[in-house]
């Protein structure tokens, strides 16, 4: 495939506080690319930047520098209302997109797809009691099977969360304090020192 599915190119996002004396309160850096359909598992504590990264990928957040290419299109050059045709962010139960509108519509390009190519699931509700998990996992696989790129983001705190991740995901990204660590399979992931540190006793169960 000539064009990579998702290219996160030297992306950087900073949040700062204070008008005169600026203090950076949070920064996120990412630089990776994914060439083909996959289910990517993403883990990290709350506030580590997972959601921010997703927002950047779907174009609803403006990067401080760098760019995001989805199917070869710079997401920030695509019309606001069509960005979700490239990458869609499932945030809790529905998708909210609040854009920093910087340019009028006619200066932007239309999206090339009808149905989103990149699906980002932000903390899906994996609840063992209601029984929906299985259907959700099937759905991830179905999307993957239709040639879509799927991200599943989770902050695991039960052993079965890790089992799920291991079961469906092919690649992993670990986020902590705004920096990313990539791993190609689950075992490699849990060998990483920061991951072990993060998961604590859950690792043993896994």
């Amino acid at each position, binding site marked *: 495939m000539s064009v990579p599915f998702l290219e996160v190119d030297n992306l950087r996002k900073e949040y700062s506080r204070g008008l005169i004396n600026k203090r950076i309160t949070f920064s996120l850096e990412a630089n990776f690319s994914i060439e083909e359909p996959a289910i990517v598992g993403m883990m990290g504590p709350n506030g580590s930047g997972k959601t921010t990264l997703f927002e950047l990928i779907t174009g609803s957040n403006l990067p401080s520098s760098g760019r995001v290419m989805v199917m070869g299109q710079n997401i920030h050059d695509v019309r606001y209302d069509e960005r979700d045709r490239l990458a869609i962010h499932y945030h809790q*139960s*529905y998708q909210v997109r609040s854009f920093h509108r910087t340019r009028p519509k006619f200066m932007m390009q239309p999206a090339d797809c009808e149905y989103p190519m990149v699906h980002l699931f932000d903390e899906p509700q994996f*609840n063992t009691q209601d*029984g*929906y998990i*299985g259907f959700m*996992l*099937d759905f991830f696989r179905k999307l993957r099977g239709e040639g879509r790129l799927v991200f599943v983001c989770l902050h695991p705190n039960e052993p079965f969360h890790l089992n799920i991740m291991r079961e469906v995901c092919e690649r992993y990204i670990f986020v902590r304090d705004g920096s990313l660590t990539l791993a190609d399979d689950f075992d490699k992931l849990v060998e990483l020192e920061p991951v072990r540190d993060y998961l604590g006793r859950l690792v043993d169960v896994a």
Partner: protein
Amino acid sequence: MALFEAQHLHKRFGDRVVLEEINLSFEAGQLSGIMGPNGAGKTTCFNVLTGRYKPDRGKVLFDGQDITGMTPRAIARKGISRSFQIMNLFDDFSVIENVLIAVPQVRDRGFNMTRRVAADVAAMDKAAVVLEQVGLQDKAYENAGSLPYGDRRALEIGVALATEPRLLFLDEPTSGLGIDATARLSELILELKHAYTIVIIEHDMKFLFGLADNIAVIHWGQVITRGTPDELRANKWVQSSNLGKLA
């Protein structure tokens, strides 16, 4: 061909995508279920299917006819009827008036300004039949607004039934009902199942598993899976859930 079909429905509210890609079909004579966790877009989906909202993309077909974007009225007249999750009754009317107004004969004479409503024996009979179906025959002249919760739910269904629908949509009929009342409702729906094509939206899986012929699971504004209750129940996660333990 299916009696009712939805193809590629997409719906947004402002910057919020609520339905991404909905494909559904319901066969005549069957009881179909739509289920999904809270906030999955079930009710919006329902509202699009029954014409309250117009989808941004996609088509809704009823009996082979495109009914996308038709007004709720036109859709109702084609024979699709629905009940509401948040109760939507005529609170100042008596129970029988609530049903009576939904009866097609009364509807067809809606612009009649001289005939007495109460004198329309045929329509009254029909309303009485519906009340009997939903078990409210003894409360026909009570004010709908002062009925107990369970009876209001039943009346909600009664109003929908009175329109003599070919397809009946029920939106979370068990919402707010206790165990007993839910059980009674199950019985009522089992009865209705013989006479009507029914679609039920529910988040209570157990309720649906007991009633439906087939079920579509909606999440993230999309149909994430569909199948018969048995097929769905076979899923290992369902097995290990509360539901599986009980079933």
